[in-house]
């Protein structure tokens, strides 16, 4: 299964490695397996950080990193599907916060049954996706501008609805179910982590193994050719934004479980972090290239750098520096891979 996700969508690499220099071989390898690069970076970084501080590879620390990565991992997953269509979503964080405030607000302030409140929150996620999708497909607004606009709108709506409150559900509420700790060996994961991993499996499978997935790649790669072969590109893009919106709302639920409350006071870097994770993970900003398994590695890389540099006692600023350098490296590698020729 995981192997399949790595190889998609290009299929097995063409086997003729003859007459290729080592650089060329690496280029072709990365071209056929876009998640290989981030995997190597992840492993090397983890080993280096463990050499610096022996606590890095402890079960407790790895567990914390996974828990920390759950929300950003989910946001990056939604972001990745959109980037695969050569789009971008600047409204991820705002959409998540809005969905989160609606879930918690309806359950706690309005006294709705919690399950229904969560369902409504998921619907809000779908609605934010629908708005972004309609802007892009019907009004032909470039995704960058359209989602920049909805970033403002969703942020404002979230703040207006929350009215500055921090909403704390009871410890047994379904709202914080996503924070339930599950012990597997000496690891302590949360249901939120499992939800994230499950969604990566599902989305990765759909992208690699179904016609819808193929069409996502085709539309991101060459929208005009896709339209001419009879793909309904409008409907496809709309479904992509809807799915992404739903994933953001699930991220909202995981976020409430992780923190234990819902507030609008969440890191404003969520938008860029999700793009960072996707790009480091080898999803091409030009669309049509990359696999979501890479995004998962990307999200973990971001987490490993934050955690590892913190354990190494390095200033916050250097984490930002490292992240920035990684993004530049990832985009440069992407450009290099795209120049692959026979």
């Amino acid at each position, binding site marked *: 299964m995981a192997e399949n996700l790595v190889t998609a*969508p*290009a*299929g*097995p690499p*063409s*086997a*003729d490695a003859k007459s290729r220099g080592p650089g060329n071989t690496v280029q072709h390898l990365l*071209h056929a397996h876009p998640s290989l690069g981030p995997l190597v970076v992840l492993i090397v970084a983890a080993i280096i950080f463990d050499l610096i501080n022996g606590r890095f590879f402890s079960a407790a620390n790895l567990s914390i990193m996974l828990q920390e990565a759950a929300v950003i991992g989910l946001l990056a997953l939604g972001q990745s599907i959109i980037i695969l269509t050569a789009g971008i979503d600047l409204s991820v964080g705002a959409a998540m916060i809005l969905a989160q405030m609606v879930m918690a607000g309806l359950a706690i302030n309005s006294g709705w049954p919690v399950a229904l409140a969560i369902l409504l929150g998921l619907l809000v996620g779908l609605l934010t996706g629908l708005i972004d999708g309609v802007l892009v497909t019907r009004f032909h607004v470039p995704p960058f501008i359209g989602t920049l606009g909805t970033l403002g709108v969703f942020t404002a709506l979230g703040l207006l609805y929350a009215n500055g409150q921090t909403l704390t559900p009871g410890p047994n509420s379904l709202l914080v179910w996503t924070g339930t700790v599950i012990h597997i060996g000496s690891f302590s994961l949360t249901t939120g982590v499992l939800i994230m991993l499950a969604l990566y499996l599902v989305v990765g499978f759909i992208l690699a*193994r*179904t*016609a*819808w997935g*193929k*069409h996502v*790649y*085709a539309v991101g*790669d*060459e929208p*005009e*050719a*896709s339209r*001419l*072969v*009879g*793909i309904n590109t409008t409907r496809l893009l709309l479904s992509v934004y809807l799915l992404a919106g739903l994933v953001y709302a699930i991220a909202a639920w995981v976020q409430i479980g992780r923190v234990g409350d819902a507030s609008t006071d969440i890191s404003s870097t969520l938008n860029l972090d999700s793009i960072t994770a996707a790009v480091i993970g080898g999803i091409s900003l030009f669309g*049509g*290239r990359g696999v979501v398994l890479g995004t998962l590695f990307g999200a973990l890389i971001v987490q490993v750098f934050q955690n590892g540099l913190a354990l190494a006692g390095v200033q916050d600023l250097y984490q930002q520096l490292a992240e920035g350098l990684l993004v530049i490296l990832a985009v440069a590698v992407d450009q290099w891979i*795209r120049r*692959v*020729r*026979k």
Partner: protein
Amino acid sequence: MTSQDENGPSDTSRTPVLAATGLTKSYGRVEALRGVDFELLPGEILAVIGDNGAGKSTLIKCLSGATTPDSGQLYLDGEEVTFRNPQAAQDAGIETVYQTLAVAPALDIASNLFLGRELRKKGPLGGLLRVLDFAEMRKQAKDHVSRMGIETLQDITQPVETLSGGQRQAVAVARAAAFGSKLVILDEPTAALGVRESGQVVKLIRQLRDNGLPIVLISHDMPSVFELADRIHVQRLGRRAAVISPKTHTMNDAVAIMTGARAA
């Protein structure tokens, strides 16, 4: 019907695969088509030539379903048809290869051949989970490509972006031939290619005709047109000016009719 038709190699008494009578189409005040007649006979390559603005593209769009004519009739195998969109024309067995290299570069050859028509696995895996049958698609793609005699497409799992321009266009033509059960429309298939690569595509087009597939070829490339076509439809000022045969007319004749320097 112009007198030149009798000079053509094809037997005009047969039912045309695709025919049109009196097609008109206006865009605002611009009359792109002013009553065009059109016949494609079984097994022939019919070239469509004409100056810019002669209505070539509009004619082709009407035939491929990309646009609907304001008036006039379309006949497929003698039966009247209307195409409301390209999908309808494709469903009727008319495939079109467009000027731009209409392939998705990051996808492999097999995926491109089946793009928009993917095969699903049999049983619940395909029915319920909608899982694609990659093995079957690759097998069919391989068979098809070798049947068409495209030696340059060796590895069916190769991403299209690793191919040359000629090979990419070959993928697009192979795709059209695979699903165009009635006929294939090739809109400037060599316009984006170099000389050598054009040669590959020309060879492929001839191969298709030899396999019995009727072809409409729109091209500016006069040498290719005269090399390939059985008959040439000359479009001028929104009408069919003439249908000529490369056997009885020279390139200069064709250009003269096209530009109006000589009456058809």
